[in-house]
């Protein structure tokens, strides 16, 4: 665990440095407050700190205030270590943003115990952040394919439609539907069907650029948002996606299952002010046209299917 110690008293600094190194900490020792604040505000800076109160340039409470103001990503556990020991000082120190307060000269056992408390709190925070990130992922992604889920892809598409108006660029939207997927489920069972869907997700992601979006729209329907993609190029790009999907049968535990995809495409130019629903309606119509044309093809839309 990294720890920062800040003290302008060389004796105190060296004593703390050696004590904490012996206790297994990776110590950064600085002799003034400004350097301490700078180190603690770095994204990869220490998350545990022992700060003297009176220091040149910036005092301990000043460091606490700076860190609390600037670093918002993850909590830094700040302990003020000082020979100021009145109740008023303790209140002032804690109000400045310190998590704990120790008086000099420190008691070795107490110092180590307080730092362990700090580590427990940081660990708890890490666990909470991890759980929050996990929940955020689950709320935005499809659990089967790990692609974006319907709500998220539509939200991103709405954002992109706004952005392309500002940037005067175009967005192409493709809706793909696996051909005869019901037959896959009926013939091989739903578990094989799930394997196919997962592989389709991988192939879709592999066939778009890093700044495009892919989401699972419904059962076997997938929505692809091709950013900065003009009308002249959209059909070619979607053709590439279609070929990538059908390039080879999907290998499953029950053998190789051939698949193809039909796709409908719509392009929203910079001047297009239609709402999202209308554009989706056009894409849906284009997909219907692709299905009607015999499947395993793509069609560019321009009409809204009722």
């Amino acid at each position, binding site marked *: 665990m990294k720890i920062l110690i800040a003290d*302008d*008293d*060389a*004796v*105190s600094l*060296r*004593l703390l440095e*050696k*004590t904490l190194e*012996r206790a297994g900490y990776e110590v950064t020792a600085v002799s003034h407050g400004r350097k301490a604040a700078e180190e603690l505000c770095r994204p990869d800076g220490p998350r545990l700190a022992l700060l*003297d109160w*009176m220091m040149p340039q910036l005092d301990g409470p000043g460091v606490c205030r700076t860190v609390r103001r600037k670093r918002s990503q993850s909590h830094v556990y700040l302990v003020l270590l*000082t*020979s*100021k020991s009145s109740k008023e000082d303790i209140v002032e120190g804690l109000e400045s943003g310190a998590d704990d307060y120790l008086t*000099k*000269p*420190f008691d*070795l056992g107490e110092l180590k115990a307080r730092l362990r408390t700090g580590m427990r709190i940081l660990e708890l925070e890490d666990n909470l952040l991890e759980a929050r990130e996990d929940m955020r992922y689950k709320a935005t992604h499809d659990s089967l394919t790990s692609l974006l889920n319907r709500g998220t892809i539509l939200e991103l598409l709405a954002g992109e439609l706004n952005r392309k108006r500002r940037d005067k660029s175009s967005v192409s939207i493709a809706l793909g539907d696996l051909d005869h997927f019901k037959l896959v489920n009926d013939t091989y069972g739903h578990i094989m069907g799930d394997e196919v869907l997962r592989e389709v997700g991988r192939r879709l992601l592999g066939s778009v650029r890093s700044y495009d979006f892919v989401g699972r729209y419904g059962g076997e329907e997938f929505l692809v948002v091709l950013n900065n993609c003009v009308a002249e190029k959209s059909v070619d790009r979607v053709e590439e996606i279609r070929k990538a999907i059908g390039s080879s049968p999907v290998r499953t535990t029950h053998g190789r299952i051939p698949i193809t995809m039909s796709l409908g495409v719509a392009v929203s130019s910079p001047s297009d002010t239609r709402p999202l629903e209308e554009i989706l309606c056009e894409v849906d119509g284009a997909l219907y046209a692709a299905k009607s044309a015999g499947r395993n093809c793509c069609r560019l839309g321009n009409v809204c299917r009722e």
Partner: protein
Amino acid sequence: MTKSEHAAIDRYVNMPELLARVEDDRELLAELLALFIKDFPKLRDVLHHAVHADVPSQVEEAAHALKGMLANLSIQRGAELAANIEAAARAGDAREIQLAMDAFNAEETGLLPAVAAFMGGSEP
């Protein structure tokens, strides 16, 4: 190390407490005392200048720094006397500052020679 040299440092430093704080690391103890010999006169001079200049805030700051250093090294009486100066300066009481300074000066006169003698000898 003679008995009298031991006695000299023991008059100023609570050695069992200090050894416990450094986890009985004699090398670290020597390093800290060397730092003390180097830094203490500077801090003491800062304090004297602040007193002569009659700036209580600077007196308070310098006395506070001395108090911390002395306390870390278990120089308990010295730390108490520095704390008295700090308190008098915070109160802005010039007479009390002078009285506390006199007591501090009397105490610290033998401090550095005692530490230096100890450093020149063997382990405690």
